Structure formats: structure tokens, C-alpha cells
């Protein structure tokens, strides 16, 4: 029999064992299940929290940004405009927050037993998908209500891009998350910095305002944010209003691919010795 396991000090930069990750797919699905069922164990309302949260947040936005500040929603019903922004942004930020503490949160188990560490952030992103799905169904319900009460909203062919958009949100949050978690094992300063950045990031994303109200001259700044085109395409595809461009979407996609590649490499390097520095 040949050697099946070889343990060496350092692996090469691009030596990522995807086969191994595939072998552990059962663990992946169990982590996903665990994340979902343990989130609301011993709560009375249970999964209803998935729905309550975005509803309250939407109402809040309608009062503050729509009412008091009077920011335009591109002529769309405020409830729909904000809810779609919230559902998509929350998915991104939830995933990012959770994956960025992968190493510090799982110290205890990582210190005892080996399995491909990448399974953990992957399962986080996947289990949040369920939550987002439920919230999206809520959005559709509200959407249908507005359609039947005669609002001028209409979906178009770009609605078919939604699976891709969700995938891109997942990819971007995973990419950022694993890079952050790799960097924070040794220097905890970054944890504080990143929490802060994610909060500010929301303001640089057209969630509470439409991209169209930004003057053309400055629009490129907001457009540098890879999340911008995703949120805008969401709105454009479902409601027919918003700024859509293939160029920007492609930019976000390429951004995601590069980010993920860098993330996986960095994460893979850190996972081998993080127990000594964490």
C-alpha cells in the first residue's frame, strides 16, 4: 500500500486539495443543517425571525430614509425598494460577518481534529442561503400585492440573472470573509477595523438610495464597489427600474473570481499553522 497521508511543514502556494473537500461533503451538509436548526433553538418564534427582521428593517427605512430624509426610490414603491435592498445586502453582510471569524470562532474544534477548514465558511454561506430564500419569498409576496393593487412595476428578462446574482453575493462574501479571517488569527486589530468597515460599506451600496440619484461624475466611485451592480441588477430585473450594465456586472464577476482565488490560497496557507498563533 502506498502512503496515503504525507504531512510536511509547508505546502506550495497553490496546493489546494479540492478532492479532499469533496470527500468531506457529508460534513458540509451536516454543518449546514446544524447552522440552520441551532440558530433558533429554544426560541418561541423560531424561524419566524427570518421574516420579522427584514419587515421591521424595511419599516424603519421607510420612516427614516423615505419619510424624514425624503430620498427618492426611483418611483418604485418604498416597501419593495427597501426590502429588496435589505434582503440582498443582509445576505452579503451576514455571510461576511460570520465567515470572517471562522478561525477564532472554531478554535476549540480546529485545535482537536483535522478536516478541511474551508468546509466551515462554505457551510455558513450555504446555510444563510436558506434564510435569504425565505426572505425572498416574503419579498415576492409583497411584490404580488403591489402588482395586484396596480403599481407600475414589471419584471423583465434580466430576472433570469437572479441565481447568478445570489451566487456572486455568496462568492464575494466568502472571498472577503476568508481573507479577513486569515488575517485576524494573529492580529486582532483587524477584527475591529473590519466590523467598522462593513457598517460603512452599506452606505456605499445603493440599498437606501438608487444609483440614479448619484451625479454621473461621481457614479464611478460607487460603481467600484462590486456589490453595487448586483443590487442594481436585482432591482432592474424584478421591477424594471435601476441602472443596469453588462460591463459593470462583468466587473463584479471578475472581481469575485479573483477575490475567491486569492482568498482560498491565503486561507489554505493559514489553516495549517493558525493554531500556533491564534
Amino acid at each position, binding site marked *: 500500500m502506498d502512503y496515503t*497521508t504525507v504531512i510536511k511543514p509547508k505546502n506550495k502556494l497553490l496546493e489546494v486539495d479540492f478532492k479532499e473537500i469533496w470527500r468531506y461533503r457529508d460534513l458540509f451538509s451536516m454543518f449546514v443543517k446544524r447552522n440552520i436548526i441551532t440558530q433558533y433553538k429554544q426560541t418561541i418564534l423560531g424561524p419566524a425571525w427570518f421574516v420579522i427582521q427584514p419587515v421591521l428593517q424595511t419599516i424603519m427605512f421607510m420612516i427614516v430614509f423615505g419619510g424624514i430624509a425624503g430620498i427618492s426610490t426611483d418611483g418604485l414603491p418604498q416597501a419593495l425598494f427597501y426590502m429588496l435592498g435589505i434582503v440582498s445586502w443582509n445576505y452579503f453582510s451576514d455571510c461576511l460577518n460570520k465567515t470572517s471569524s471562522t478561525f477564532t470562532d472554531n478554535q476549540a474544534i480546529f485545535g482537536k481534529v483535522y478536516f478541511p477548514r474551508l468546509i466551515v465558511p462554505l457551510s455558513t454561506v450555504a446555510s444563510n442561503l436558506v434564510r435569504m430564500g425565505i426572505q425572498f419569498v416574503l419579498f415576492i409576496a409583497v411584490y404580488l400585492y403591489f402588482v395586484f393593487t396596480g403599481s407600475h412595476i414589471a419584471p423583465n428578462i434580466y430576472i433570469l440573472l437572479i441565481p447568478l446574482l445570489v451566487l456572486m453575493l455568496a462568492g464575494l462574501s466568502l472571498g472577503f470573509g476568508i481573507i479577513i479571517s486569515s488575517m485576524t488569527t494573529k492580529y486582532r486589530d483587524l477584527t475591529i477595523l473590519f466590523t467598522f468597515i462593513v457598517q460603512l460599506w452599506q452606505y456605499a451600496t445603493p440599498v437606501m438610495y438608487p444609483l440614479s440619484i448619484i451625479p454621473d461624475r461621481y457614479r464611478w466611485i460607487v460603481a467600484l464597489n462590486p456589490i453595487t451592480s448586483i443590487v442594481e441588477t436585482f432591482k432592474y430585473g424584478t421591477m424594471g427600474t435601476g441602472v443596469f450594465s453588462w460591463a459593470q456586472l462583468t466587473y463584479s464577476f471578475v472581481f469575485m473570481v479573483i477575490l475567491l482565488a486569492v482568498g482560498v490560497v491565503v486561507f489554505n496557507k493559514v489553516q495549517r499553522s493558525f493554531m500556533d498563533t491564534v
Partner: protein
Amino acid sequence: MPSAIEFENISKQYRLGIVSTQTISHDLKRWWITNIRGKEDPYLKIGEVNDRAHKGNSDYIWALKDINFKVEQGDVLGIIGKNGAGKSTLLKILSKVTAPSTGEIRARGRIASLLEVGTGFHPEMTGIENIYMNGAIMGMTKPEIKRKLDEIIDFSGVERYIETPVKRYSSGMTVRLGFAIAAHLEPEILVVDEVLAVGDAEFQKKAIGKMQDVSRGDGRTVLFVSHNMGAVKNLCSKGIILENGCLVYASDAVSAVDEYVRKKESLFSNDTEIVISSRHRERIMSLDVEVLTVKFEKESNNFSTKDPISITFKLKGNKDTDHFHVGGIVLDFEDRPIGIFFGEDILCIKKGEIKDVTLMINNHNLSVGKYYVNAGTGKGNHITGVADFDIVNNVLDFEIDEFDKDQQLGFAKWYSAWGNILFSTSYK
């Protein structure tokens, strides 16, 4: 027969101290030298052997240094050594929790580790859910677990609670469930670290039996770390001794244990008075009543079975304390605890006061052999709860060299299999 695992030049270096602003410049320097200039890491050339008791000069220490050995398939290898000798680091590297600094390990077959049983149990999930979860963490597939589910539940003996969240389990039940899963992993190589320290006696017996089945029946390889020399002798076929991160002895299990005991006995000290220093304290204690010195009152450490042993403690009060006691544990040179002695809670001391207290152990009935003492101060009992003020380990060594000074008992030789106590008897 081919070897199951080969360790080649395995070393592990740790950096001492804390992560600070200096660390970042240090890291950058190291990164620059190795990655940009493509040279060898200069820090891997320095460092000291890992001796925790003495303060060294280097920030780098070797938790393991140049470990080379092979484990044959079907061997049960016992790894013995003092605390801090590098046993756990070795197992951590083997189970891929951390990477070695140099060297290479080559293994044939799946490695499963029991560094701590019940790893990854989620308290909110039921026993059965955790079996699947834990099995998957250890690398089993779902159908594999399903096939063995009944066997695992049966082995763990927690069938009644299997649908209850694990947070409601007692610690013994958690350990049993964890071990049951691990025991049914059927890996080619099983790594075990001190799991047997927990769990009740009946379960320990079951667990040891299972481990023997694993190695004998199916030619599996087991690596076993333990402080229990008896368990190593009984369970293992081979043994190695680690000392300060280096491999100093490799042979069969019985001679490895004997060598370890012999080595320890060679450090047997004839000092009858020990001045306590920080190296005697393994943990940080309150030191309300501090032990300054301990000594044998008769200024000799040779006793007979019938001799009382008197130990004088020089104590310092760092706080007004009353109703405390002095006491200790007697251990043999296989690190087996033999018995405990302590006085009544009737002592008192004022802050700043230094006083001598002598405690006499009567009728100890210890048989011929070498022993050592861990001593301490404290108060309370198992009803009120015990508070320890100071615990000092490995303080006095002594030897029982004959049974009775006046009249020799009828033994020519004492066999180790007879144990450590000569009960006092009389015909009725």
C-alpha cells in the same frame, strides 16, 4: 510487514512571548528573508530544547527536535514522558491540527485522533444528531455511520438519552458517546491521548478492550499517550520515551516503562529537606498559607514498613487563616498515586507568621520501594468543599528499604505484582 507511519526529522518550533507590535516587524523580516530573498529561514537554526523549569536565553524553543522513528503496522505504541516532553505536540502534528516546522510524516491509511473525545459536539443537538456530526468531522461518510449507528449507541450505553440534547448529558455520558463514535471509526491508525483519564471504571475497561480488539484483530495501528504506566504496559506492544522534545528511548512497551521508571529513580534524591521554589508549583495558587520548606523530621529518607514517617512543613502565613490542614499524596515512581495523608483542620496562622508543623504518618504499611511526595496546605473536606492554598509537587523522595527494623517478616523478596501495601494482619 510494511511500516504504518514513518516520522522523519520531525521538529516543531514555537515562539515564546506574546503577539505585539514587535511581532509584526519580526514577521515581516522573516517573510522577507524566506519568500523574497529565497533563503532558508534563519530562525529555524536557533532555539533551545524545551525545558520549562529553567529560563532560557532564546525566544524560540523546540517543542520537538529531530524525531525519527517508524511504527509497524499492527503495533500499539505507547508514548511516555514527563509533562511538557512533547507528547501532545507529536500527536497534534500527526493528526494535522498543526504543521511541523521541519521534517515529514508518511502514513499508510486513515488517521483518526482522539485528542479529545466529543470534539465538535453541539450542545443543542441530540445524541443521534451529534453521532452523525461527530462521525462526519472524523471523516466518516453518512452511510458508514448509518451502518454502525446501533453498534455505537449500544457501546456508549446512553440509549435512553439518545433523543435528548447533549447539553443535558453528564460529562461521563458525553465522553462515553464520544469514545463510542471514535472507536467505531475503523481507521487504519488511531491516535489516543489520555482519554481513559475520564469515564467510570466499567467504561474504561470496555474502552481498553475495544482498543485491543482494534489492534489485534484487524492489524490496526494505535498510538497511545498516557501517564498511566500500568495501562501502557498492558495495552502497548512498543514504547518510546520523549524527553524535552527529543526521542531518547525506543523499544518494547515493558522495557520502555522500566527505562522511564529507572530514569526517574536515578533522579531519586536523598535530600531530607527541600526548599520550595516556583518549579514545584504547576498552577498558580492563592498561597494564603505558603509552604517554604518540607523535610523529614528524622533527617533520613529511609524508612521501614512499620516506621512512622514524620514530615515537617515550614509554613508562612500570607493572610490570617485558621482551621486549615497540611497534607499530601504519596506516589510511586511509575507516577501512580498510592495514598493520601492529611491532618485535621485545626491549624491557624497569622499574616506574616512563620511556623513549623510536623505531621506524622502512622501505620502507612507501605511495602519496599521508592516513593515521592506531593504536599500542600488547604482547608475543608468533601462535604464543605476543599480549598487548596498551596500545592507543591515532587518534593520529597523516600525509600522503604525493609519491612521491620526489629523482626524481619518472612519475605525474601517483594514482587512488584504484589502492589505497594502490606496490610497488617493477625490471626483470630
